[in-house]
């Protein structure tokens, strides 16, 4: 038991740094995923068939490729191709673009939850297509996408661990646990604290989603 505590307190700075790296990866990658995901969702519901197809290809590609393969393409592959890309950039873009495909699908099904009659009504009132999306569809769709987006953030917290132990070697929470564990063969203790870190993050995300759901629930 003494070991367990000392593994945490002796390396507190490293633990906090690792936790912070994980948190930063998740936040930045989620921002990327939201921006790209919204664009792709807009493509998928665009009134042009070719744009729809383009969005569909994006989703099917990024949803079906393992994140680890994306990381190898983004880092080792692009470096070989001559691009000057660092581990941090490769990590957040891979995770962001990967999750963007799921975000796009969540947003699209949210948009389809708004009845077609409302869109037609808005268009016939003289709104342009982008105006209709912004003023009528998105505010309502937002409510229905809170919970799928919440599960995507949780998935993202978990997927961020792949970045650290793959070839990119960013010192995130899992990498920190591995480093600290290897120092004194205290893997069980080190991984226990990493688990606490990850469960804290996923637990907080779950709570936040539940609060948001309650806040924006339609009262009937």
């Amino acid at each position, binding site marked *: 038991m003494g070991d367990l505590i000392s593994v945490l307190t002796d390396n507190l700075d490293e633990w906090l740094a690792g936790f912070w790296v994980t948190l930063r990866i998740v936040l930045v990658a989620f921002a990327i995923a939201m921006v790209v995901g919204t664009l792709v969702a807009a493509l998928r519901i665009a009134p042009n068939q070719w744009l729809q197809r383009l969005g569909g290809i994006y989703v*099917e590609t990024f949803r079906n490729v393992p994140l680890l393969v994306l990381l190898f*393409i983004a880092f080792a592959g692009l470096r070989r191709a001559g691009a000057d890309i660092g581990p941090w950039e490769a990590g957040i873009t891979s995770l962001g673009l990967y999750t963007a495909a799921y975000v796009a699908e969540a947003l699209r099904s949210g948009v389809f939850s708004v009845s077609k009659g409302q869109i037609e009504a808005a268009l016939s009132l003289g709104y342009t297509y982008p105006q209709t999306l912004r003023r009528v569809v998105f505010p309502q769709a937002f409510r229905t996408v809170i919970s799928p987006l919440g599960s995507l953030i949780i998935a993202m917290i978990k997927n961020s661990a792949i970045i650290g132990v793959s070839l990119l070697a960013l010192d995130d929470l899992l990498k920190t646990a591995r480093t600290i564990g290897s120092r004194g063969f205290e893997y069980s203790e080190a991984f226990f604290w990493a688990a606490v870190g990850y469960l804290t993050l996923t637990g907080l995300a779950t709570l936040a989603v539940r609060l948001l759901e309650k806040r924006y629930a339609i009262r009937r």
Partner: protein
Amino acid sequence: MNYLFNPDNWEWVITGNNLRFILEGFAVNLEIAVIAMVLSLISGLALALLRLAPWAPVSFVAGAWIDIWRNLPLIFIILYLALTIPGAWPDAYEDAIPSWFPEGLQSGRVLAAILGLVLYNSAVLAEIMRAGIQSLDRGQNEAARALGMTYGQSMRHVVLPQGLRRMVPATVSQLITLNKDTTLVSIVAIQEVMRHGRILTGTNFFGGDVPVPILQVFLLIGALFIIVNLALSRLSRRLEVRERKRTAAVKPVRDLAEQAA
């Protein structure tokens, strides 16, 4: 761009044994995926039933178990098991594994990988199945019980067939995720497709004189996953349509109108 479209680079990928080496690695991924899928589906169903058990302590313990494993990163679980599993376990696995098993699965390290995949995915699948079972109208179970069925009979003949069928799309997308996640076992040094890709491009991985086409190799590996996963989702969609046709006792009137028109 030159690098990407240079035909020499693509030719390198398929020359000699390179392509075969990658495909051999990919086969190991598929083997691990199939084993993990079967085990996860079985234990996932068991966990879901335990969580829904009418006895509070059992359902609490099962719920805690599920929530812990499904909220931890899979790669964390695999790495942890690989580092801390008692050395006797992989040895026992190597002894127990029949020799006709694929070569890629003979190594004892596979045990940690499969165990990790199953621990994580069974927890996720259990939640999916529970949601399916709970989405079913309570009256279904009550009616079955009122007809004199036991709890087990009502589950087996009434609740599960309907509840699980509803969750086929969610289950399939989780199985696709599982299929992708088999690449993660490469960090515990199992000779699957990512390892093979790295070995193939291993000389001067981060630059050097011999320009091995790393990008092309991993684009090819990505394409392999796209093909298999798309096939998987197509298959499930076809099954779904067939099931709906088979189980629909009363054909919707809409169909008749379409036939008439």
